[in-house]
């Protein structure tokens, strides 16, 4: 469902921006205009806590004077402000250095097909209904177990927006999309043994979200499972990343094969194209045109057509993740990834989560990671962790206040298995990942 009149209203503004850029002397330009409206409500201890009405809009322009580039943005879309914004971008471009790689995409790369990706499902929910749903969700969490001692509340968010992008090559496209979520965070235990955990569900269509009951219960289940957590002694052991954590691992890989890291030589996977970086059973691919998915798009942030393609197959790195600029710097072609990837999918094995635990045997199941301890240049990895100690495939007790460490190059090669328990809540779709061994530091 797309409101063409609203898209056309934004298109007119983007066209004015492009015309104005030309008028002010730019040799090329691109512009985007986005509008987003939303409602967030939260409830805590059975009563409404906040009601927030969101209403955001913004325009962004990039202008080129030959090989010189400047950008500007504003949230004021009055005609005077549009002119001023172009002027600011032009002024920057005049001072910027010549960059032989700068410029709009090659015209033949621009998307020409715009299938309906089923991304727009406005949720007709008002504050009262949102509050009722949040209270239902939190109640389900608080009632789940006697050990639930407190709550940070539950929240319901609903956003719907329109985004139009155009450039001076004649590309001018727009679409509407929606995003709704439900989340709950509760506490178990008291005093020094207090633990908090949360759960959330997110979807383009509110009907596809998990029920308020389920979200509340999962949050509570996770918080209660942490009770009695202790540290581990320092050791080496196999580590199973729960799906929510596995996506971070794939995210680190993604960072290392992204054009920006590569041309800056700030990656532990330099010159790794066409080499084995993971075991031969691993396939990672992009599925940009999945209907209704959170990461779907037919064109990227530059208007370039997205591609359904393999990034890794047979464990071999087949493609980098590139925008026009980074591709030109590397002497390659853009992969339609300006602004990021679209439904990056890691093919799963046969194992469900229980089978993955069994395969882990004795080791650490990681369900939470803390901190930013990843060095993209060297691949060195060291992060705070909590989760569960597992013996013979059965969870023994919760653990906390430990770190896990290794080097991403070895970690990626030492993947033993990938589960089919895929987390679909993000732009990276991956199940749990089992690593042969990592260093655990603890008490």
């Amino acid at each position: 469902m797309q409101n063409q009149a609203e898209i056309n209203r934004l298109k007119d503004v983007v066209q004015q921006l492009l015309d104005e850029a030309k008028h002010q002397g730019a040799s090329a330009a691109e512009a985007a205009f986005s509008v987003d409206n939303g409602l967030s409500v939260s409830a805590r201890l059975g009563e409404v806590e906040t009601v927030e009405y969101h209403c955001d809009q913004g325009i962004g322009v990039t202008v080129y004077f030959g090989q010189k580039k400047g950008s500007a943005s504003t949230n004021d879309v009055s005609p005077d402000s549009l002119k001023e914004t172009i002027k600011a971008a032009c002024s920057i471009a005049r001072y910027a250095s010549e960059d032989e790689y700068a410029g709009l995409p090659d015209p033949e790369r621009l998307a020409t097909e715009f299938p309906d990706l089923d991304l727009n499902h406005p949720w007709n929910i008002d504050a009262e209904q949102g509050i009722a749903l949040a209270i239902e969700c939190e109640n389900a969490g608080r009632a789940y177990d006697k050990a639930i001692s407190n709550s940070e509340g539950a929240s319901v968010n609903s956003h719907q927006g329109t985004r139009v992008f155009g450039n001076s090559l004649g590309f001018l496209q727009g679409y509407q999309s929606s995003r709704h979520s439900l989340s709950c965070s509760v506490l178990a235990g008291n005093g020094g043994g207090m633990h908090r955990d949360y759960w959330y569900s997110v979807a383009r269509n509110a009907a596809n979200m998990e029920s308020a009951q389920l979200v509340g219960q999962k949050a509570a289940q996770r918080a209660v499972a942490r009770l009695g957590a202790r540290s581990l002694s320092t050791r080496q052991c196999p580590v199973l990343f729960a799906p929510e954590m596995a996506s971070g691992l794939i995210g680190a890989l993604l960072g290392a094969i992204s054009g920006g890291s590569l041309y800056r030589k700030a990656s532990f996977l330099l010159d790794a194209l066409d080499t084995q970086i993971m075991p031969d059973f691993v396939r990672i691919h992009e599925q940009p045109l999945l209907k209704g998915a959170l990461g779907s798009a037919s064109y990227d942030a530059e208007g370039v057509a997205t591609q359904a393609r393999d990034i890794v197959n047979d464990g071999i790195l087949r493609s980098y993740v590139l925008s026009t600029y980074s591709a030109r710097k590397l002497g390659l072609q853009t992969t339609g990834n300006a602004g990021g990837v679209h439904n990056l999918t890691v093919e799963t094995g046969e194992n469900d989560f229980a089978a993955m635990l069994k395969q882990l045997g004795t080791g650490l199941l990681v369900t939470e990671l803390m901190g930013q301890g990843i060095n993209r240049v060297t691949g060195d990895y060291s992060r705070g962790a909590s989760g569960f100690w597992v013996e013979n495939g059965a969870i023994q007790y919760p653990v906390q206040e430990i770190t896990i460490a290794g080097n991403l190059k070895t970690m990626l090669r030492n993947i033993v298995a990938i589960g089919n328990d895929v987390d679909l809540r993000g732009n990276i779709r991956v199940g749990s990942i089992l690593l042969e061994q990592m260093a655990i530091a603890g008490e």
Partner: protein
Amino acid sequence: MPLLLDQVKQSILVANGLQPQEIDQVMDTLLSAPLDAADIYFQSSHFESWSLEGGIVKEGSHSIEHGAGVRVVSGDKTGFAYSDRIELPILLEAANNVKAIVRQGQQARHKIETPKSWTRLYQPFNPLKSLDDQEKIDLLKRVDAETRKLDSRIEEVMVSLVAAYDNVLVANQDGSLAADIRPLVRLNVSVIMVENGRREQGSMGGGARSDYSYFLENDRALEYGREAVRQAQVNLQAEDAPAGNMTVVLGPGWPGILLHEAIGHGLEGDFNRKGTSAFSGRIGERVASDLCTVVDDGTLPGRRGSLSIDDEGTPTENTVLIENGILRGYMQDKLNARLMGVKPTGNGRRESYAHLPMPRMTNTYMLPGISDPEEIIRSVKKGLYARNFGGGQVDITSGKFVFSTSEAYLIEDGKITRPVKGATLIGNGPDVLTKVSMVGNDMQLDSGVGTCGKDGQSVPVGVGQPTLKIDGLTVGGTNV
């Protein structure tokens, strides 16, 4: 002060066609409901960034944003709406929407005394205009050229320069108006060095609530380049970090991120009112060794984390959090202070008009002790000396926190010996400071680079500390 108020009224209200007296109309709409507090936050910000890499200034961007946020509070309930259009009909509609939350409210209106004056901690100038564009480019190029001269192993130098000029006006329910003009600048240098196929990075930056001249004073910008190179040189020699529990000596300055993560967040008023912090209900109890006194001080002139007034119009304070090891106080915004029956401490901050304020840190640091830093190192038989850190994170409920070293060394027999690779350190907030056995006399504040995230909102902050010895912290290296 009146001059500044007039200037801000002009730049935010009049420039958008809103007459200052029309604020009263919006406030009257809000106050027709039985509520505890209401405010309207007007903001206009200008931001620019310039970046250099590969020896050329290839990118710059500029942005202008303005808008207003309308908030009502009744008990612990908050209604909030914002708009990027500062126009009377839009603000009236927002006011009508948000006051719905207090329909069933019974609270009487609270009389809040709004301070009439405060100390101005920075000059109300626009840093974007403190150099012309050519001078900004020249500064970046000079930093690049001078940094590259320092070591032949340098492969890439990246320099970024950003400035923000923020005008805010807070209208409170008692009819008072508080205004602030907040400049903020930052410059960052990072280098990548290569030797025998090994690749390492180093980075250093700094900033202040000042203008670009800050980076020219004492050649600060060039000093950041030298420091980035020095760190990369050290990292080229680094060996695998040790794993396990050991004595850790933290260097002065930025390692104060320990305080920010381990205890700072846990002492924010909202978590303590709700009882979700590991520090809840512990005022008056011992949470640190008696060598430790920690404050949150928003009143330091020109510092990145400082504010003349917070985002609710409350002047910032120097709040004692821990005094000689005893927990003394929490950081408060108005809502949580009222519900807890204490005074606001000037810690009510928000990322922008489009976000709700909440208790946030300003500059959080530990006061100096008496030990000579060299004596502290000498006292350690085997341990880790962590001189620089990247970021950190905390779970305020369990108290577990992490922060990651970016420059660290082994201490062997009282001497700093070999550099080790970056590793995450993990500990428990409520007891880490009880293990502080020595506090140096070399208190330093960080160079002005901190950004703190909470509930998706980012705000600039500062940290600081003297050299500290902690008897037992888990170091997450690979060398088991």
